[in-house]
């Protein structure tokens, strides 16, 4: 792949350049959305909307030294939120994109349920999100900062706090008698 900044610049007018970016990122974005929603059909819709929106907003995109992929993650994240807003319109929408119930339902679909996932589902969404972006999506602090609109230093702090809370949650779970009861709800 040629220098990504140049490719993005070219993609504003050249369909082939945009196609190259699409080919490079589409699987990653699809995997991300699938993990977030737990629904392949929904994930396909969201991926399609994400790239459409990226194409539409490309003239406004500014290269800030962080991968183009981070911007796509940001759009996909927004599309996921929009999807859930449409589904559960009468629930409060502020900062609660993923309800614990939905996370648990999503977790249920995963084949390998382990205690880390259970602990994750019990953390505040703010913590879950930064952990997922870092350890599941393997984004750098700078890329996460682009997705969440904050500095990479802030990402480091949030990540540290989230890990700390995850550790506490795991310790608490270890003392619980019926850990897996959560999945029967």
């Amino acid at each position: 792949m040629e220098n990504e900044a140049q490719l993005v610049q070219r993609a504003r007018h050249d369909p082939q350049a945009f196609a190259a970016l699409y080919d490079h990122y589409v699987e990653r974005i699809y995997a991300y959305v699938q993990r977030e929603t737990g629904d392949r059909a929904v994930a396909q819709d969201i991926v399609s909307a994400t790239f459409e929106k990226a194409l539409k907003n490309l003239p406004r995109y500014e290269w800030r030294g962080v991968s183009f992929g981070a911007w796509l993650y940001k759009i996909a994240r927004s599309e996921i939120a929009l999807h859930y807003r449409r589904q559960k319109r009468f629930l409060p929408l502020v900062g609660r994109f993923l309800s614990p119930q939905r996370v648990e339902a999503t977790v249920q679909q995963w084949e390998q349920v382990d205690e880390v996932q259970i602990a994750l589902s019990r953390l505040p969404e703010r913590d879950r999100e930064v952990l997922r972006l870092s350890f599941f999506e393997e984004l750098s602090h700078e890329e996460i900062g682009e997705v969440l609109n904050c500095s990479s230093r802030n990402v480091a702090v949030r990540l540290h706090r989230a890990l700390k809370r995850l550790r506490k949650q795991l310790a608490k779970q270890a003392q619980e008698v019926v850990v897996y009861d959560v999945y029967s709800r």
Partner: protein
Amino acid sequence: MSIQDEYKDLESRLRQSKPQTEPLPPAFKRQVRHELMEQMTMNDYRFSFRKLSMALGGLILLIGIPVFFWLAQMSIGSANFPGTEPDPSQLDPSRPTPTRVMGIVSEGVEGSEQNLDRFWLISTDISQGETIGRYGTINVTVGYKLVTVQEAELIVKLVEGPQELLSANKMVSGAIGTAVVSLPLADLEEPEGNLVTLELNLMVENPDHSTTKRVYQDFGAGWTVDLTAEPAMTTAEIVRISKPSLVEIDGVVDEFVYDIELTIAYTLSGYDQALLVAGYEYSDANGSAGGYEVIVVSAGSGDNVPIRLRVDRSFFNERGETIEGVNFFVRLNHYDETAAEWVNLYPGDADLTDGERSIPYPYHLQDVFYVESAAWGEDAAGQPILNVRMSYNLTSQPTAEIEVKVIWVEDLVLASDSLGVEAGNGSLTIPLAIDPTLDPLFLADIPLVMVSAVMTVGEVVIEDGQSVVYQGASETAENEIQIIGYEVVTRTTESGVAADITLFVGYNLSSDYSSGRITFSSQYSAATQGGGGGSGGGGGSEKAVSPGSGTAEFDFSFETTSWAAARQWLDSMSTSLLLFGDTTSGEEVLVAEVTKIGID
């Protein structure tokens, strides 16, 4: 296992627990790719077409303007171009035809000015001649043309014979335009008898009274008001739509979603409570979309109820206006317990969406309240101010009280404020001026404050808070370490109470060292309430640091039998912090240390 190893292990477990996903179906991948390419080609085409249109437009203007002036020259002598003044009778063929029109009458106007300022009835939302409920609202749309004044007052009156029953007014300006005036019959003075026929009068009056000029028109048919009708009438209307602003969640701007605030006026009678639904709908050939928010409103009326909507940015154009096909709406729904379903009260015939039908009843939406951010600033006198931004979504009660405090050590309140909010969702920023008698050096010494915010909804209290480090705090000197603050969270356990403590430590390691570390340890020793002794290790850990200044956090917890014992243990706690630096020769030396007894 050291804490570092524990974290490494945790990170590794997190990576292993990454949920597996299916690859994107190749056919779908190809299809999306194809559609995107097509869209891009189409955009190019549109761009070219636009350029072509602009060029043609320029050409038309070049030719059209001289022709226009030539035509204007030809028509000199005419007062108006045909079509600039709508003929009242031609405006809307579907509008109800008045059975009795008295015509335009001017009073105190001489000569040629007569009839220059005009107005005309365009429509009423309830056809004249119909019987309307006692609590209905008649919305009257009026067209006007102002020639002799810039601005005028439009007065709409409902009369019964010579008696004026109700009036509403509106300032209008500009040469020509339309205005909608609402006449809520709930405000109607009680007429005698069960049935009453009304007439509509329209008047335009010069607002500065420099000339007494009044024109009015009398549309005679009117309506019949059924005074025996059930007073179960509801109305709701959007009175204002704010400009869109980008959504900010926890201080993070989402550039793809707009916040938009609808201001709603409503009247609800005959029901104790109803659900006010405000939202937007969009539809085009490809399908439809939309969203809404709801709040509970109580019997009575409100004219300034804010409802904040989150709307995808793609529904707006570059100028921030909604694109064609987007409509905002407001509805009032009520749960019919007999039929066990939601019914629409206003506008009365709206089809409820699946989402609205499935809202659980008794309806209870949890009230939401949280502190979005807290940022330091200064007032005009240079005193520190903490600007606390909070968000709320109040649905269960019509009003609630919000109280916010800035707390320093020992629960010392540095500043506080409180205010009431009404049902709806919104956000507000309260600037809290820090007590000027407080020596700012105190804040510099222990620069961590806690913002404590509480929303009281009936008997329910919702709390949120945030820690903020005072930015005016003195920097930690080179090769020094200091405790800049702490947070203590106490909780009840099965055997007593537990305290979770976070220490905030400022450090500054000079560039003489290649790297360094901070070790933290704490010990407590105190008599418990029951008379027995207690002592032991409160906690210990270490953190690697790089040269330069920064903040490190250390967490530890302890459990004891009671709150009093916990307090004693906190008072007697001995905390020790050591800052070590690695020299270029590889030797580790103690750079600074600090010991503190008691958590205060």
